[in-house]
């Protein structure tokens, strides 16, 4: 039991600590072996993370093949069709992209037609949620929201070339806002977040944040 715990838990945790320390000290120490070791480790990281990008695909296959089965048994044919189309797209794209190459005319056509229009619109369409939030929710309810609205109002005006061309003072105000108000209040946040990030690193290397190991048993 205890040896299995060593292999399953303690060695990985020790590995995290050692590798983290190597990479950290590479920043401060000029020593060629250390430098080439970290560069190699980082190249390994690129490969490992690339492999992990396949997880999303595996999860989709798992989730949607189950959903097809369930929808078929419940007679929800459209739902089954949706999942089937999703999986078909997944496989066609991977086959064409890996088989014929990403630079091939076929993959370029698929990408330009589907990926580009869908991604671009999916992000852009948030405009409507945002617009409806500005119209229906943004109210001067308190001093805080009042300030938020005032600065927001000035910024929208300043972002519109139409206004900025006719009211040059907007340019001066927006510079004061961005290079002063925003820069320095966000600096306080940056310092806090930065320190928080370092402490998160300390906890991880000291094996106090072990969520990344997955399932808690053992």
């Amino acid at each position: 039991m205890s040896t299995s715990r060593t292999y399953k838990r303690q060695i990985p945790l020790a590995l995290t600590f050692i590798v983290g320390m190597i990479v950290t000290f590479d920043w401060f120490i000029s020593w060629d072996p250390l430098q080439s070791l970290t560069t190699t480790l980082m190249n390994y990281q690129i490969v490992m993370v690339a492999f992990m990008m396949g997880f999303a695909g595996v999860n989709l296959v798992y989730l949607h093949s189950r959903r097809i089965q369930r929808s078929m048994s419940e007679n929800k044919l459209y739902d089954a069709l949706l999942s089937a189309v999703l999986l078909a797209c997944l496989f066609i794209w991977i086959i064409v992209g890996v088989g014929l190459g990403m630079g091939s005319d076929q993959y370029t056509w698929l990408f330009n037609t589907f990926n580009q229009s869908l991604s671009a619109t999916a992000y852009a369409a948030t405009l409507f949620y945002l617009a409806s939030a500005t119209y229906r929710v943004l109210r001067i309810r308190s001093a805080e929201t009042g300030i938020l609205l005032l600065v927001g109002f000035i910024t929208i005006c300043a972002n519109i070339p139409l206004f900025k061309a006719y009211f040059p003072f907007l340019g001066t105000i927006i510079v004061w806002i961005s290079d002063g108000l925003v820069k320095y209040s966000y600096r306080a946040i940056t310092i806090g977040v930065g320190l928080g990030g370092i402490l998160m690193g300390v906890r991880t290397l000291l094996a106090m944040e072990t969520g990344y190991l997955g399932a808690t048993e053992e």
Partner: protein
Amino acid sequence: MADVIGTWIAALLTIAITSLAWKDQPVSKMANHIYIGVVTANSIVQAWQNIMNVGINKILAGEFLYIIAILLGLLTYTRYSKASFWVYRYPIALVMGIGVGTSMRGLVGGSFLDQIRDSFFQLAVPGDAMTSVNNVIFFVILLSSLSYFLFTIRAFRSETAMKFSLLGRYAMMGAFGYSFANTIATRINQYAGRIAFLLIDWLHIAG
């Protein structure tokens, strides 16, 4: 011909996804499912190119140490097995260690020391009252915002200190207003790109 079909499909998908903002209906659902499938597939295709470029090509060129990288990469898939789930912990432990080390070492300089170094204000600039006043204001904004995030220091709990940090909260609210408005600009810009596509490439109305 392929271009014309492509433009039509792209235009119809654009409209279908836009309609999602209005109401969830069968057509937009279909577009959404296609979206998830093709986006995931593309990232896998790109990841594959990366594995070739950074890993496999080097092995072919004689750098056999990169076999370890490929093996570690393959081992990540043991997470789908209940019995040998723990093997997955080795590559993820490395990824975690490298990632944490890389960001930690940079955070000290980037988000702590350099931030302090750039915050030494000249409160009285000779012959420039405007800059002096601004510097005093910015100095107060920075310190009050900073004091807002002190949670365990009792000395900062006095009434004056709390009022001072409230000033920081107001300043941050102003900054959020800026951010909010800028987001609207971002989204309008992106939607403008889609409208330009529909009008120029699809309908050939403007140009």
